């Protein structure tokens, strides 16, 4: 039994409207070369060997693109590579890469630790006797887009919200109105863009207006 597939070939696409048989075909844009980039170090995979995460890059490539892995890391490929470089330089390169890798790992570790330790400060600032604004500081350490977060706050609370530089030159979100508890709740519930923040790192602070000097 012939399977269904060969039944009705789709009607041939209308011959791409050729205006004039004699005229040269209209120039087409040249399609771009699609380049694969390593998900670990963002280089094209052939350059991973110069990156700082060679081991991880190799793992990634082996899993995602085994054919390319064979192309770049098979014994043959390694042989030809060594052929073009003196042995001494090659060993030096390998040593350097290993060193770099260790360094990069340590760096990543430190960055993660720093991220986990960084605090978010929600500050309630008195404007007038009964009016307050709320400033949220330190969200960017968790990779949150401040502009988007501020937009979210302003639409959620129906108040003004902006990203401003504080006196130290660092960016913070200022929301008008006393919404510190609500923001804390939002962070705990990971609403919208506020994701990946451990609730323990959030601190509520109150700032009273200084007595007139």
């Amino acid at each position, binding site marked *: 039994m012939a399977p269904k597939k060969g039944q009705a070939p789709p009607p041939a696409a209308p011959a791409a409207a050729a205006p004039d048989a004699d005229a040269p075909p209209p120039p087409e844009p040249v399609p771009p070369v699609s380049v694969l980039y390593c998900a670990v170090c963002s280089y094209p995979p*052939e*350059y991973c060997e*110069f990156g700082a995460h060679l081991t991880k890059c190799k793992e990634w490539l082996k899993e995602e693109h085994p054919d390319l892995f064979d192309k770049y890391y098979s014994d043959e490929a390694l042989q030809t590579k060594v052929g*073009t*470089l003196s042995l001494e330089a090659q060993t030096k390169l390998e040593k*350097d890469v290993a060193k770099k890798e260790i360094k990069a790992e340590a760096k990543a570790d430190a960055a993660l630790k720093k991220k986990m330790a960084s605090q978010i400060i929600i500050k309630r600032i008195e404007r007038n006797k009964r009016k307050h604004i709320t400033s949220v500081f330190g969200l960017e350490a968790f990779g949150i887009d401040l502009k988007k977060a501020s937009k979210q706050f302003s639409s959620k609370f129906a108040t003004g919200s902006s990203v401003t530089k504080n006196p130290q030159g660092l960016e913070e979100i200022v929301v008008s109105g006393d919404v510190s508890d609500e923001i804390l709740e939002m962070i705990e519930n990971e609403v919208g863009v506020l994701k990946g923040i451990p609730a323990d790192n959030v601190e509520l602070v109150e700032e009273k207006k200084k007595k007139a000097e």
Partner: protein
Amino acid sequence: MFKKFQPSTDIAGHTPVKSSIQRSIRASVLSQWKIEPETLEAIWPKKEGLIHVKCREHISIYTVHGEPLIFQHFDGPFYPTLKLLHKYPYILPKVQVDRGAIRFLLAGAHMMCPGLTSAGGYLPPADAALPAGSPVAIHAEGKEHAVGVGITKLGTEEMRKVNKGVGVETATYLGDDLWALQTL
């Protein structure tokens, strides 16, 4: 140029480019790169306005939809970003460095003449010689894709003769801060 580049501190502002200036940029890009008008149209449609991102030290980056495509130093030639060059590798003339130089290139060094003239290197033949000050794609021995974009400091024939010192000044390279920048 982009070894240390932080969007937060190094960018002075974004401004849409006037259409008359866009026209002149388009014309000079077409004359400086080996690119067909149709391809340029595909990368940068006429309808889409170019955004000029002004950076410190007279560097201008031009973006379309937030994606950096072209950059320029002062009044110099236009360079494609490395990502653009990977997509359209033929738009700039090619030079190649040997394997030993890749390491230094990825650390941001300028390319010295011996690395270009040695067995693993490649310079355009004498009949296609490049003058000093032309933008080039820097390829590497045994690699398929370009590893950097640079500008020749000496003519290619001169490089062969002198064979010493800086031959190609690196403008951007794989893994620098412009590379890490996906959008602006």
